[in-house]
């Protein structure tokens, strides 16, 4: 019997998607193998913010750019893209070097959790808001994040890792972030995410022999979604010039430094992953920082001086302090505690050192909108 089963990545409405999913479930024999899988509980965090402040956003000053961006997201050029096709080559999970496998699964689980948490946050903002422009944006972004999470989840299933969504029945506490911190953090996160994915995608285009998993082939479309989410946050910030001037510039510098430094430290903790990709993490970091800085000039009045002699040295010190801290914590006892205190102080000093490097100032462009060009 030949039954043409439509894929719900092609659905246009939520209702259609649900109907297709239900129909497809009948043909999904993989569910039966779930029990044998390694279980990973997803643990997203739950947030609240000042929803009145969100509702008060008025996008009329950026209306033209805003409508264009929303239309583009509504048109959903990536619909149907996030599904496996003949480009999804066989993955030899059994034959994968154990250290690489561990690091790669950490990559997939962390990425899946991040997309999933983004979806929870955006959906909450959509649900609690009353401003039509804002709720529409967050609904579209939640759609993309859920789609990415589903795609990564599928790659995890192939590796024998099942994510568990049972966290909802556990007690969970809602924390609070000020809207402006959400803008700075998520804007940067989306833009640096774009820079990270496109850099790997371009590198693997030139060196396909290092592409050890097919998911990297999907990075281009994936990061284009990240790019437009970043654009939306840039326009949101543009509606209120106070967000990118005065004392807030110090916050912007803090977020830039913290995001770049955290990325550097985390990437250096995954040597097998980068080795398999044929990527030197120091080269990669510099490349990603350069791209992110070029992009964030659209809305941030400063960029970090990543070519300053203290920059790379500071990152290396921070990374070393962080590794020592983990070692000292594992050691325990009095000497471990003392060593961990020392490492924490060194990490703090390294961060302050990075933060105090004078930033490069520049005038903001008249038009904020950019297109992905890397």
């Amino acid at each position, binding site marked *: 019997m030949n039954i043409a089963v439509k894929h719900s990545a092609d659905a246009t409405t939520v209702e259609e998607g649900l109907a297709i999913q239900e129909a497809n479930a009948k043909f999904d024999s993989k569910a039966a193998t779930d029990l044998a899988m390694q279980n990973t509980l997803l643990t997203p965090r739950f947030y609240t913010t000042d929803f009145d402040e969100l509702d008060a956003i008025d996008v009329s000053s950026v209306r033209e750019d805003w409508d264009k961006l929303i239309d583009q997201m509504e048109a959903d050029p990536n619909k149907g893209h996030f599904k496996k096709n003949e480009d999804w080559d066989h993955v030899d999970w059994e034959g994968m070097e154990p250290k690489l496998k561990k690091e790669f699964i950490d990559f997939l689980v962390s*990425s899946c959790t991040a997309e999933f948490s983004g979806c929870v*946050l955006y959906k909450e903002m959509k649900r609690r808001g009353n401003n039509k422009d804002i709720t529409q944006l967050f609904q579209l972004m939640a759609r993309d994040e*859920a789609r990415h999470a589903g795609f990564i989840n599928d790659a995890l299933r192939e590796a024998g890792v099942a994510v568990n969504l049972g966290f909802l029945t*556990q007690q969970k506490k809602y924390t609070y972030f000020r809207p402006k911190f959400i803008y700075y*953090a998520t804007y940067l996160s989306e833009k640096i995410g774009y820079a990270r994915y496109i850099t790997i995608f371009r590198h693997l285009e030139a060196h396909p022999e290092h592409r050890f998993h097919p998911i990297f082939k999907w990075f281009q479309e994936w990061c284009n979604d990240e790019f437009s989410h970043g654009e939306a946050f840039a326009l949101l910030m543009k509606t209120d010039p106070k967000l990118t001037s005065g004392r807030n510039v110090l916050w912007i510098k803090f977020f830039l430094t913290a995001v770049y430094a955290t990325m550097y430290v985390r990437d250096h903790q995954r040597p097998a992953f980068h080795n398999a990709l044929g990527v030197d993490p120091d080269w990669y970091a510099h490349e990603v920082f350069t791209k992110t800085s070029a992009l964030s000039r659209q809305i941030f009045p400063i960029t970090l001086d990543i070519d300053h002699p203290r920059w790379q040295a500071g990152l290396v010190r921070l990374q070393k302090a962080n590794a020592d801290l983990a070692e000292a914590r594992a050691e325990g006892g009095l000497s471990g505690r003392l060593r961990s205190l020392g490492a924490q102080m060194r990490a703090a000093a390294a961060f302050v050192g990075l933060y105090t490097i004078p930033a490069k100032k520049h005038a903001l462009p008249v038009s904020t909108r950019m297109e992905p060009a890397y």
Partner: protein
Amino acid sequence: MGLLTREFERAPCTVEISHCFESLHAHVRFNNGTTVYPGDSVKVHGPEIMAPYGMVVSEDREATIIRASALERLWTRLTGDFEVMELCEFSFSDEVTL
């Protein structure tokens, strides 16, 4: 709302879990229009809700909202921001070694 006391509140809710290729998501919606505030905790009652792969499961349940005391709410508003870096995506967990 007391300065130091927490209050408990029951609320009907709908839990939707999608465990599909094109959408992996899970949401709780309160059906009586109530909302949560900083520092509140929410617990959905009943057994763990599991959606088999390829399925969207939607269930009506009851939840308890543990309302934060006034002090707790203030504390969460003042300190929550310190954790804002969680919103950033770094591809990897913070484990130094795996």
